[in-house]
């Protein structure tokens, strides 16, 4: 049983003068513990696909099954809870709440899950240690580098103990050295916590690091291969 299954997914944006077919009849599955890159040129539909995968947007057609739940049929209120408990999110930039420290940012997601204060604190500290920010816990996002901020974002994504983590171009705003080390860290988390990572990118060096690479072009899956 696949962790995630996209069935006949298509997405058409009608907000523009000419409707845009961002995704065309996508059928794909993702398994537990995958470390997968969604790649493709700008405008190929990566973000659209991740948004639909993460329940942030509804497809025009088709169904999304996660852990046996059809999220396309969920009520908005239930969907928020589903995202909170099942999916970790890392976005391209500005992931964090600027007025909270790194530690508080990681704790916040567990607060939403109503985890007790003590457990919250402990878990957040452990995760920040894991992502290599044990000494920066009390810094605010503005006092951290772009790479460090993304590490906090990954720690937050993991804090909710999700079924998988979605990261839309997590390295797009980073220099290549920070990008490399963020990928190192994500790979480590993938192994250490058996966590599924699905991330989009158009950076060749990042693509190399993925175990599976799904290439999109023009809203369709052009290639789906396993990296050696």
């Amino acid at each position: 049983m696949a962790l995630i299954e996209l069935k006949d997914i298509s997405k058409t944006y009608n907000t523009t003068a000419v409707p845009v077919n961002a995704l065309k009849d996508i059928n794909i599955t993702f398994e537990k513990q995958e470390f997968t890159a969604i790649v493709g040129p700008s405008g190929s539909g990566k973000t659209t696909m991740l948004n639909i995968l993460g329940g942030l947007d509804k497809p025009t057609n088709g169904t999304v099954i996660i852990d046996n739940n059809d999220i396309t049929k969920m009520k908005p209120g239930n969907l928020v809870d589903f995202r909170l408990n099942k999916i970790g999110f890392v976005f391209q930039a500005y992931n964090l709440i600027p007025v909270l420290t790194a530690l508080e940012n990681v704790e916040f997601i567990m607060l939403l899950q109503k985890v007790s204060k003590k457990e919250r604190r402990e878990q957040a500290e452990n995760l920040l240690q894991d992502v290599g920010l044990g000494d920066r816990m009390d810094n605010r996002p503005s006092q951290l580098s772009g790479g460090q901020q993304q590490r906090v974002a990954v720690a937050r994504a993991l804090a909710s103990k999700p079924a998988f983590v979605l990261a839309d171009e997590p390295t797009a705003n980073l220099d290549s050295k920070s990008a490399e080390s963020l990928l190192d860290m994500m790979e480590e988390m993938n192994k250490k916590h058996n966590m599924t990572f699905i991330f989009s990118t158009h950076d060749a060096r990042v693509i190399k690091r993925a175990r599976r690479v799904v290439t999109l072009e023009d809203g369709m899956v052009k290639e789906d291969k396993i990296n050696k």
Partner: protein
Amino acid sequence: MLTQLAWKNIWRNKKRSLVIILAIMLGLWGGLFSGAIMMGMAESMVDSAIDRYLGHVEIHSKKFKDDVQITNYIKDVKAVENAINAQDSIAGYSKRTILEGMAASAASSFGVKIVGIDRVAEKSVSRLYQKIVDGDYFDTQKRNQVIIGKKLADRLNLKLRSKIILTFQDVHGEIIYLACRITGIFKTESSVFDETNVFLRQVDLMRSLHQTETLIHEIAIRVKSAKYVPVVEQNLASALPGLAVETWEKMAPELAFVSSSMEAFTYLFVAIILFALLFGITNNMLMSVVERIRELGILTAVGMKKSRVFFMILLETIFLSMTGGILGMTVGGFFIGFFNSAGIDLSAFATGLESFGSASMLYPFLPASMYIGLTIMILFAANIAALLPAWKATHLTPAEAIRTY
């Protein structure tokens, strides 16, 4: 944590938040101070009316209430005095003779209320003796002395030691002319009172009426503190069922109305100010939400429920408003407190105030309950101000809010 977050969020744009907090503070300060002045004025009007003549509780015969006639006197004065003496919060009482009549000089005449008093007893109720601006307060023993108001003296072209003719009816309806000498002129806060009241010794009045027994039409009572008024009125009313026992509020309903409506006016005043501030607060919060659309989108995306986002924005609005509100109430409170003990000298405008019957020294005050009422009003305003921004914050599509092209 949500509370802390909300508090931190309002300080993200310090300048903008401070401006709105300052606006709320100044608005409330001004509103409260104006309210306190109105309340102080109302209290001063009430106090001067009580001090001048009214007293706290007055007793008349029921007939006298309908028809101010010499024959409608209180039949059993002794019983009234016994009932009064049974109360322990009485500061003093005065038995007055009231006659409707005319005061005439060589120049002209004017309709007046002729009040016969006992010099000492009256002192324990009214402060008329402190209002003498010329002459004295029945300090000599000469017969037929009269004390009149400055306004009446001017009107009738009379001075101290002038002769004045008082005309009134006796119990048989016969007209009595009484020639008196003016030995005192008073000036109170109320020019109407000064124009229409003249005071005589009760003995002189009874002699002219050929009465052996003193006719009492009115018994005015001063209690030790205003808070005893309702109790005293109740006790006396049940002890003296045949008589009309009334508090100053019933005697002078217009005064009672002014005093009670000032509080309502102050609320209205502050409500209008808050209403104006509401737009500022809403605008401020809207800007703050629009600036954070991306962040709010991310929070919704990672699993923050609409209700929590709504609550956060509401908390921010409440914090912002209450910070300004508490500052405004504190500064306003100090200001009011200071002028309450120092007083504000309004003698420059005193002529205008006289027609209102208010003293020239003003002591602004605001009842403590008002601060509670205001806090509730500010909270209410904050809730309304938060509606639009919070609606905006909860009706965003995360995919749209987060999208970076």
